[in-house]
């Protein structure tokens, strides 16, 4: 059972369902999606947040389409890959008994007053409903009717009636509903469910800033919380997506964001932790505000430490600061005053040089932090899950990040600790893995099969093309008028039907498409919308469910290739979009059906890298009942975690590591290959054959999936006299001295740490995320060892995010001093007169240099990836600009590698502390389980085929193919290309002088007809 239908709950449900477990998803609101659906955009890609949900929506839709949401309204019956997720909306867990493997859970379901099985979400009831209530989804900034859809494109897409406070049961909605779905007599239900494990993902509440009298919230209309600002930016928001300020609906030209509202503060609230996400979402909101209101919108963010410590977040921050002109003012605003006679607000602040300035802003956004909601705490009590008293988030250990004190109950998402969307998604997969391990024997027992309709034979039929337009939720803007395009498209050759929808990827739009294909018996489908990379599989799957071969489908990317990139030239953008659609229609008319080959899935995983991440992944895979091969190039397991010997929080890293190594080495289903390395690989998803060089010669390993955990290594600093003196160390070297109780440490009078050594520099523009916390822990360890020692940390941004902020507080309270410097004023390290080290740094608050004479100088050096280029070359995995493995999608698939069937974990994906590496390792195993649980895998389709009559056996293809696939079949005296091996690149096709080879789906004819249609524009 998964409690909480936010992004974490949904991802956990999907990973569990795809890994062979039936899932009961309990959500207290009328629809799933949590806070993510309330967001306008999501960083770092600035894609619409609905997009994140939409991208989940093929998965969400699977949930949506199952029994609870009723397949009936799509008359598709057997649709959806599988019906293994049962959603209970308006439901809450009230009692839990039993233990792991056998919980009996009481779920109370409030009446929805609308039968989801009958509701066809036509909206008739809302039109007639006389009662308007504040729209909770839009945080009461907008009115909605008592009976309405929870939010546009909600999943499950059924209406809901809120009787309290004002519905007087006038029954107008009952009469208006043809489907007879409205039933005012519905009673609360209570049900007992028997489940094997529980994942708690109740999410969070944003902090209510009304405690700060100085912020005039909610009295002043132009002071809004960041979530309210998201609604203002959103298309479904109070102003239809136009950036207006609440007081006079004018376009705000100057907006201020105040950071740390309800976080890092013991005074106004007891949230002394950092909420991790506010810095990034403030930058995103500033960028989107500039996009809406034009570049001249002046955006200022008042902050203390800019905490952009995620993958690619530092680039996002630099781009906002240097290219987009977002102003960053390092100052924590306590209060501001309304300017009399205007709706503006005056903020009085201190500039870096210390002079007092007052600026007038049209609007102020309070970047509110995250708190465990009252319901979250209630749920914790019901489940018996202990909560950390200081932060009110779930009490977890860094070595088992998703487990709680109660066996069988797991936790993920913000309820575990404040985190952003990618980390929540990752942690959800980790929770799914944990459940997978616990219930391994029960895998697959409660599965419901999926049936696909027989494929109708369309060969020989004239092409009947249906073109479906999508305006992608309004993000097309005015540049591309989808209605005009649809009208024009009707005249293209072969087109017999056109339709357009605000969001084609949503659940109900899919239903309309299915109906249209059936009614107009279309045999070709074109979707004009966004990039095929994102929704190609979703639409292809819908086409397949309409009984069409999935290859009779094409997408025209009028969003990324027209609407978004020609904002200033609307007419040309329209012309180009029309051309793109014409090209796609021309191509699809010439496409032929293709069949995929079916192969068995090898139930084994190859894990590369024997560090903590690799071992955790292997152990999780093995505990789930699959075979794991762990390849480690050195002679022992442990990796960088071996160097973690100091923890002021009392974590026994080495004890954990030894325990893990013992478990891995003794596990029957894990084969450890030390002093081994991967030399070559071949095959495809489910059937990889990898040769591993071992001391005992080459070993051929057959596996279905692969996990990359090659880890990282500390950067050898090339500045601050490192390497030239023995009192200049890296963090690991210092920890070793502390652990060995070396006199150098006990005798030291003064210790200095320098942060960001090698990180956040032009040649490595990324943040190594773990060094701030590591330095603070080591500093605390030094203070505990010798309280009289002066400990000073020189930093650029103190990024002790989430609950690590408590460490930073503890360090300061114990007398550790923190001095800030910026890239321009780096500390000068030189040999002092007495031969001792001398560090000079300018204190930016006082504008004066400070001279330190440390006995120990520790450099927090960057984290570099290890083995990513080599493994990337062998397995063809993409590596990002900084040399770390590139994940398939930062939001939706943060753990999947670019090649399907491969997953990433640990430092090789991006620098992260041990507890997050462990979570990511379990997540990788969880994701891998969704493939390993399958019996078969489908391959082929887009491959090269030789026309034996035309082949002159000139061997050009044999010499050209980079993968040496073509061979000469002397029985037929012609070349032969094995469809399993062919990678589908088409190099041989264009090299073949006789044009004997044609590539399915990309034949010359298909390309040329698309080209001419495009050029004719």
């Amino acid at each position, binding site marked *: 059972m998964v409690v909480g239908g936010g992004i974490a709950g949904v991802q956990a449900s999907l990973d569990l369902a795809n890994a062979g477990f039936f899932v009961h998803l309990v959500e207290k609101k009328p629809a799933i999606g949590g806070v993510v659906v309330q967001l306008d955009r999501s960083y770092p890609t600035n894609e619409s947040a609905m997009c994140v949900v939409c991208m989940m929506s093929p998965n969400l839709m699977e949930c949506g389409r199952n029994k609870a949401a009723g397949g009936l309204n799509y008359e598709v019956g057997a649709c959806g890959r599988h019906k293994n997720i049962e959603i209970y909306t308006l439901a809450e867990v009230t009692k839990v008994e039993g233990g792991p493997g056998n919980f009996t859970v009481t779920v109370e379901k409030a009446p929805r007053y609308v039968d989801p099985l009958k509701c066809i979400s036509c909206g008739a009831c809302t039109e007639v409903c006389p009662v308007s209530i504040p729209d909770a989804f839009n945080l009461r900034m907008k009115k909605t009717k008592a009976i309405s859809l929870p939010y546009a494109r909600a999943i499950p897409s059924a209406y809901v009636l809120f009787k309290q406070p004002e519905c007087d049961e006038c029954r107008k909605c009952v009469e208006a509903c043809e489907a007879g779905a409205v039933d005012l007599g519905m009673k609360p239900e209570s049900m007992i469910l028997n489940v094997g494990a529980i994942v708690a993902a109740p999410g969070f509440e944003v902090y209510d800033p009304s405690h*700060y*009298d100085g912020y005039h919230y909610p009295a002043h209309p132009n002071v809004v919380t960041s979530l309210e600002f998201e609604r203002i930016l959103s298309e479904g928001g109070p102003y239809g997506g136009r950036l207006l300020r609440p007081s006079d609906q004018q376009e705000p030209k100057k907006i201020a964001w105040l950071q740390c509202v309800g976080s890092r503060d013991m005074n106004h609230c007891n949230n002394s932790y950092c909420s991790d996400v506010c810095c990034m979402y403030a930058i995103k909101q500033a960028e989107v505000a500039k996009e809406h209101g034009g570049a001249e919108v002046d955006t200022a963010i008042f902050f203390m430490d800019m905490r952009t410590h995620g993958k690619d977040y530092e680039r996002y921050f630099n781009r906002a600061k240097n290219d987009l002109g977002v102003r960053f003012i390092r100052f924590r605003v306590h*209060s501001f005053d*309304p300017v009399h006679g205007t709706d503006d607000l005056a903020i009085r602040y201190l500039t870096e040089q210390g002079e007092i300035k007052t600026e007038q802003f049209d609007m102020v956004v309070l970047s509110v932090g995250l708190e465990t909601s009252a319901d979250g705490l209630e749920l914790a009590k019901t489940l018996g899950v202990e909560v950390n008293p200081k932060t009110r988030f779930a009490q977890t250990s860094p070595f088992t990040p998703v487990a709680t004190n109660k066996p069988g109950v797991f936790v993920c998402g913000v309820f575990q600790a404040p985190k952003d969307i990618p980390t929540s998604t990752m942690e959800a997969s980790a929770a799914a893995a944990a459940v997978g391990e616990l219930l391994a024997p029960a895998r697959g027992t409660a599965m419901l099969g999926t049936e696909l309709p027989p494929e109708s034979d369309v060969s020989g039929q004239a092409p009947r093309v249906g073109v479906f337009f999508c305006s992608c939720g309004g993000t097309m803007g005015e540049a591309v008028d989808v209605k005009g395009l649809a009208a024009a498209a009707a005249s293209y050759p072969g087109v017999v039907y056109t339709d357009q929808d605000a969001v084609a990827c949503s659940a109900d739009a899919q239903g309309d498409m299915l109906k249209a294909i059936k009614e107009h018996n279309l045999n070709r489908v074109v979707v004009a919308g966004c990039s095929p990379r994102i929704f190609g599989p979703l639409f292809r799957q819908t086409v397949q469910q309409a009984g069409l071969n999935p290859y009779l489908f094409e997408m025209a990317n009028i969003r990324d290739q027209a609407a978004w990139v020609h904002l200033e030239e609307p007419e040309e953008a329209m012309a180009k979009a029309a051309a793109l659609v014409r090209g796609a229609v021309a191509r699809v008319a010439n496409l032929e059906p293709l069949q995929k080959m079916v192969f068995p899935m090898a139930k084994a995983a190859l894990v590369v890298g024997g560090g903590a991440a690799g071992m955790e992944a292997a152990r999780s895979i093995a505990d789930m009942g699959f075979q794991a091969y762990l390849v480690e190039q050195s002679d022992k397991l442990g990796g960088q975690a071996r160097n973690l010997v100091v923890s002021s929080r009392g974590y026994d890293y080495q004890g954990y590591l030894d325990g893990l190594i013992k478990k891995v080495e003794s596990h029957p289903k894990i084969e450890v290959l030390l002093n081994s390395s991967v030399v070559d690989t071949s095959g495809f998803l489910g059937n990889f054959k990898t040769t591993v060089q071992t001391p005992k010669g080459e070993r051929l390993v057959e596996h279905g999936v692969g996990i990359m955990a090659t880890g990282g290594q500390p950067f050898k600093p090339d500045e601050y006299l490192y390497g030239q003196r023995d009192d200049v160390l890296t963090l690991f070297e210092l920890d070793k001295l502390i652990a060995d109780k070396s006199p150098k440490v006990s005798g030291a009078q003064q210790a200095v740490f320098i942060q960001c050594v090698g990180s956040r520099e032009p040649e490595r523009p990324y943040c190594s995320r773990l060094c701030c916390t590591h330095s603070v822990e080591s500093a605390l360890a030094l203070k505990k060892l010798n309280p009289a020692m002066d400990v000073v940390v020189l930093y650029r941004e103190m990024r002790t995010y989430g609950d690590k902020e408590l460490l930073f507080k503890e360090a300061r309270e114990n007398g550790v001093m923190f001095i800030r410097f910026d890239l321009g004023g780096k500390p000068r390290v030189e040999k002092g007169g007495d031969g001792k080290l001398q560090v000079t740094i300018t204190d930016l608050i006082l504008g004066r240099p400070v001279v330190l004479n440390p006995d120990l100088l520790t450099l927090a050096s960057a984290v570099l990836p290890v083995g990513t280029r080599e493994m990337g070359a062998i397995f063809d995995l993409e590596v990002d600009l900084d040399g770390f493995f590139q994940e398939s999608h930062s939001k939706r698939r943060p753990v999947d590698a670019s090649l399907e069937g491969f997953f990433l974990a640990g430092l090789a994906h991006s620098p992260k502390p041990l507890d997050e590496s462990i979570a990511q390792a379990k997540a990788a195993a969880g994701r891998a389980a969704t493939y390993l649980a399958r019996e078969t895998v489908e391959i082929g389709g887009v491959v090269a085929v030789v026309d034996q009559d035309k082949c002159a056996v000139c061997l050009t293809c044999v010499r050209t193919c980079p993968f040496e696939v073509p061979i000469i079949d002397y029985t037929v005296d012609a070349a032969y290309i094995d469809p399993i091996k062919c990678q589908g690149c088409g190099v041989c096709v264009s090299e073949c002088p006789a044009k004997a080879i044609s590539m399915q789906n990309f034949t010359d004819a298909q390309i040329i007809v698309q080209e001419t249609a495009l050029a004719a524009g």
Partner: protein
Amino acid sequence: MKVSYYPGCSLEGTANDYAASIEAVTRAVDVELKELEDWNCCGASAAHSISHSLAIDLPMRNLLIAYQAGLEVVVPCALCFNRLKVAEKALKGMEAHRPWQASTHYVKIWDLLDYFTQPDLLKAVAEKITTPLTGLKAVPYYGCLVTRPPEITDRADYENPRNMELLLRVLGADPIDWSFKTDCCGAGLAVARPDIIDTLVHCLYERALAAGAECLVVSCQMCQANLDLPQERISQNFGKQYYLPVLYFTELIGLALGLPEAPGWLDKHLVDPRPLLREKGLL
């Protein structure tokens, strides 16, 4: 109702007009003030600035006297109120270390305005109103030490107190909201650095006028002195004639209740409030 009363030194000297209005108004609502037996000076800002031991011992003596009296203590002067609360916290701190000595039973220390804005007293005042102060646009000025710091004063609404607005509304006046109700007037620096007072108070005058106020209402005689006395000097220094009478809330209650002595208090102000009150038909 009987309460202990701690007037403080200035109410016997420069602020004896305030003392007069307090006694009259409390009598009018049947609150009997029992002055603390042999009270001494609380040391005000001088003690806590340069002598920590005096800053604690002086108010401590008054505190122990109050405990012996056994009644709740009402304190008009913000500074004396703050010092008594500091002593109370210091005593609790000391007793926390030596719980076996925790014999004293504490009494509540009231700031006068807080005391007067209790629901039952407000009702008592409301019942006795003869001439409501309709049309009198006033901005409430709380000063600093009545509300801050919350760990000492135990005030919940320390950023944005509203009880004086409540009282003014009960009296029929028109309280205006403004953001500077708890900004500092310079307090103890009045004698040593009058120039600082000029800058601070000039800014308060400007903000009060911008908010549309006709007069300021205070509950502490230090604030009254810093706002009332230098008004003429500030008008000269800043070349703008200010006419903003500074009234005690007890004087307004006296007026609203039609007490005969009320007009007598008004001529003790430097900035004569009577023209404004006559214009409003309240005199």
